[in-house]
Each structure stands twice: as C-alpha cells, then as structure tokens.
C-alpha cells in the first residue's frame, strides 16, 4: 500500500510551495471541470487487454479536466500542464481510473528526486528581465527569460530550470513544460498517462504499455504572443459540447524489452507499436460540478483485472499521496474494485 508518512510529506511539500494555498481543494490541478460521456472500445482492444472496459460494450465515463497549477487563482491562458482524469464506470459499482496530463514525461524518477525538486523549485518573486540582459542573452544565442504574465508576482520557473540544469533526466520534462503553451480547448490537447502499466490479454500474455488520449478535433494552443485570458476553458468546453460531442482516441503504446518500464522521465521511442483501444465521447459538462468536478477523487491505482501497475516508484508513491490529498480536502471516499 505504500508509506503514508512519505505520502503526507509529499503532499505537504507540494502545498508548502504553492503561490497561494487553497485549503479544502486539490493542492495541484486545483481548477478543473467535470464532464460526462461514454467510452467504446475498438474491435481489437479485447485482443490486448481483458479489462472490462475493453470488451466492447458502452461504458459510462466521468472526466475531470484541469489546469496543472495549484491554488485558487484561475489562469487558463498561462502556459501550463493540463490534466485529464477519466473514470470508467463498470458493472456492480466498480470503476477504473486513467490519469493523464499534457506532459508526456515526468521530471522525477522516484520520491527522492521529487523531494529534491520541491526543495529547489521554490516560488520566488519574479519580474521582467531587463532589456539589456535580454540583448546580452540574444548575443549569446541564448533563450531570454520569459516575461511574467500580467499580475504574476512569483514563479517557480528559475528553480525548476536550476533543478533541470543539474539533472539530465529531468531536462526533457522541464523543457517540454516550458514550451507547452495553453490549449484553445481542453478537447484540443493530447494527454499522456506517463506511467507504464502491464496489461493482460485473453491468452495470459502480459505486455508493458503506456496510454494516451488523442483529440479527434486535433491539437491547438493559443497564440503565445497574445495577452492570456484567465477564464475561457470551461465556457469553451460547455459551448463545444452544446454543439457537438468531443471525442478522444485512446492509444496504447506497447513497450519492448529494454524500454524504460519503471522510469517516467524516459519516453519510449516513437517506433513502438500503437494500438487504438477505443473512443471516448464527451457529451456534456457534469450537472453537479461539486460532486463530479471537485469531490470526485481519482487514483492511478484504481484498476481492474487485466491492468496492473508497473514498478515505477512515482506511480507507487502516487497511490498513497492521492489518498492523503483526498482526505485533506474531504473528497469522495475511494472504493477499490
């Protein structure tokens, strides 16, 4: 089950570094919106995984989209990681969760790395870099520091950069997070469940896999040069779903011997076999946003027969950390399948 004291320290470390705490709310991915829909597995999904939601029947789903930043302030237009947590409602009240973000890799290999990250990546006062400093950077063919957003007073950007500069394993995630931008819609981003899971097929063959959601509407971000808008993603999704459902394809990449199974900082090569596992159709925003947008609690360990966690230490740490966080904000109790 994991060490709950470590989980508590993990959650506390995250809360301690928030620009503004949000008691009773999620410490990260605080701002979010719930949506309803259904999932239909593809014809081939059952050949790869025996889990109930891949058998082909229509499965009701609840999805929570979120901005990665912690705290009560909403900044939809800021460059930030976005979350997409999906619950597959199965028979007899059972369920399976799939938690994904727009960042394809993580910046820590294990809990120790994560604690180091929280020590280095502290919120610090931020101000616009002097134009002369920028000119000096340009003369060195160096990326000048990004201007702070309007009314942004603190940032963990400098600390994160410092962390990555001394840890090559973290550089990919930090670089990608730095250029990730803001989606024009929650339905126009690709979301990756960064960890490896083991899936079992009908013949008992187990395969290491990684899942990702790919938007049928395509990927698009806002203009980074434009002044960011703080609140638009929820309204945009509501309007979008009022007109037409939003769809995502669930893609499953199959790893090979030699791929990083237990290290979420390492991507798998693009040459791995990708299987279409099904299509998610979102039909409307959840009517009860308190229950289905806020109190709903996801956990990457909420799995069913046919899908198992890998040995990824971050995945193992998330099990208890999510529970601790849920208890702290009085989220809906967790039911194991």
């Amino acid at each position, binding site marked *: 089950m994991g060490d709950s004291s470590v989980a508590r320290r993990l959650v506390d470390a995250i809360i301690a570094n928030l620009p503004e705490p949000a008691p009773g709310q999620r410490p990260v991915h605080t701002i979010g919106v719930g949506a309803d829909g259904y999932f239909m597995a593809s014809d081939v999904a059952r050949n790869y995984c025996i889990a109930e939601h891949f058998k082909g029947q229509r499965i009701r789903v609840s999805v929570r989209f979120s901005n990665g930043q912690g705290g009560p302030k909403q900044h939809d237009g800021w460059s930030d990681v976005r979350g997409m947590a999906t619950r597959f409602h199965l028979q007899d009240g059972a369920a399976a969760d799939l938690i994904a973000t727009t960042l394809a890799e993580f910046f820590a290999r294990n809990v120790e790395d994560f604690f180091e990250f929280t020590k280095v990546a502290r919120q610090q006062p931020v101000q*616009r870099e002097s*134009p002369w400093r*920028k*000119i000096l*950077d*340009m*003369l*060195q*063919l*160096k*990326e000048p*520091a990004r*201007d*702070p*957003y*309007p009314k942004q007073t603190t940032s963990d950007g400098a600390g994160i*950069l410092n962390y*990555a*500069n*001394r*840890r*090559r*394993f973290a*550089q*990919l995630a*930090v*670089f*990608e997070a*730095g250029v990730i931008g803001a989606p024009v819609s929650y339905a126009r981003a690709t979301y990756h469940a960064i960890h490896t899971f083991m899936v079992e097929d009908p013949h008992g063959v187990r395969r290491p896999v990684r899942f990702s959601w790919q938007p049928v509407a395509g990927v698009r971000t806002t203009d980074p*040069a434009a*002044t960011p808008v703080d609140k638009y993603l929820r309204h945009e999704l509501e309007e979008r779903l009022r007109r037409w459902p939003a769809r995502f394809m669930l893609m499953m990449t*199959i790893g*090979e*011997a*030699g*791929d990083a199974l237990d290290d979420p900082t390492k*991507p798998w*090569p*693009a*040459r*791995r*076999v*990708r299987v279409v596992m099904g299509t998610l159709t979102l039909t409307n925003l959840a009517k009860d946003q308190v229950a289905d947008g806020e109190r709903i609690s996801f956990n990457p360990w909420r799995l069913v027969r046919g899908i198992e966690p890998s040995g990824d230490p971050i995945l193992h740490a998330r099990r208890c950390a999510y529970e601790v966080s849920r208890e702290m904000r009085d989220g809906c109790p967790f039911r194991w399948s």
Partner: protein
Amino acid sequence: MSGEEGWFDRFVNGLPETRVFQRLASWVLVPYWSWRTPVRPLPGGPHPSIQPGDNLQCMMNLIMPLKEKSPVGRAKAALAIAQNKDAIYAGLDNVGTVHFARFVIVGDNICMFSVYDGDFTNYIRDFIATIGSVFNAVVELVEGGEAVIPCEHNVEAFIQWVHERDLYQVPDTATDLLRDQEALNGDKAASGNDDLRLLPRKVVLQLRANANVSLGSGYRAYPGFSAAQVRNQLGIGW
C-alpha cells in the same frame, strides 16, 4: 505582454525577428559561437539499437550533389532512374525489406529517401547484390561517386560512402539532441552543469555542422511492423 511593458521592452522582444538582428546572427554571432564552442557533425542514419522496434521502418535520407549542375545534369539523373525502373522493382521484390524508396531531385542534388527494415549495412549490401547497376548509374553522376563504383567491386567503401551521405536524424525529443552531442564528445555523465537556455545555440550550431538533417525519426502509421509482416497480413505474399 504586460501593462508595464515599455517601448524598449517591446523593441527588444521583437529584435530577433528584425532583419538587422538576423543578419548579425548569421554573419557574426553564429560564426563567433561556432569558433568559441565548436560543434562536430553528428553521424547520419538511425541511432544504433538492439531493440526490435528500432530496427523496423528505418530511414535512409541521401542527398547527393550532382556533378553537372544544370538542367542537363538533372535530366541525366532523371533518365538514369527512368531507365532502371524494372531493375529497381526487381531489387525491391527480391530484397523484401523495403517499405518504400523515392528518388527526388532538389536543386542540383539527387536524393534517395527510403524506409527499410533491419541493419543499414545489410540493406545496402543486399541492394548492391540485386541492383548494383542502378547504384552505379546514379552514383556516376554524383560528386565523388567515381571513387566507389562499380559498387560490386567496392562493397565496404561504397557502404561507407553512402553512410557518410545519410542525413543525421535529429531526435524526436529536443533534449536528446544534447545527449547526442554529449555522446559524440564522450560525455556520458548522468548529470552536468548544463544550461537549458543555451539549447537554441546548440541547435543552431549543430545545424551549421549538419546543414541537411532529417527532423525526427519519422512519423509512422503502423510502427513496429516490417514490410514482410504487412504484406503477409494483407495476403499479398512475398
């Protein structure tokens, strides 16, 4: 961007897009930093790997400058391919590891782009055996080609010649370019005292050293399957 942004901030933020700065960068900054922090060309072709998926649908991207840089020279290259159409198909069907191959004329270069399964040297070796005459007809028109033809008599030299003209494949992830540069310099450390903000300079200098590159390892609709598997599944034999 922000309300406190003054005219000088706006001017400096827009500076990289100005013609003056771009010329300064091309004529002064890039040569200067190339001299101060030299970057060596990275080798072409797929990254070595023992993993099965990495040895399927590999890319070869050859750009070969024609000796005769004129419409006549380009026409000769086009004719060399047209005259050998049957030989190319015969080679493809006999080798059985090629997904597709294309000959393209860009400027005064003849380019060969192909996607193949398996080891690079075996791929070229197989083609020398089956369509060596086509290679000879094309390479004869290319700068430096006379040293390695007939390819049937210069197998190892020919493979090396082709490898040297195969484009560097920029990794799919930006920071893996840094890892390639470090590996070329013998730096295998897990951690260093790096500066990620220097990534633009490193990319620019690498593209100075490798002027022609393939961007990424290719985008595939059905990765992880060989040409033989695809044909078998389609029931069209091989």
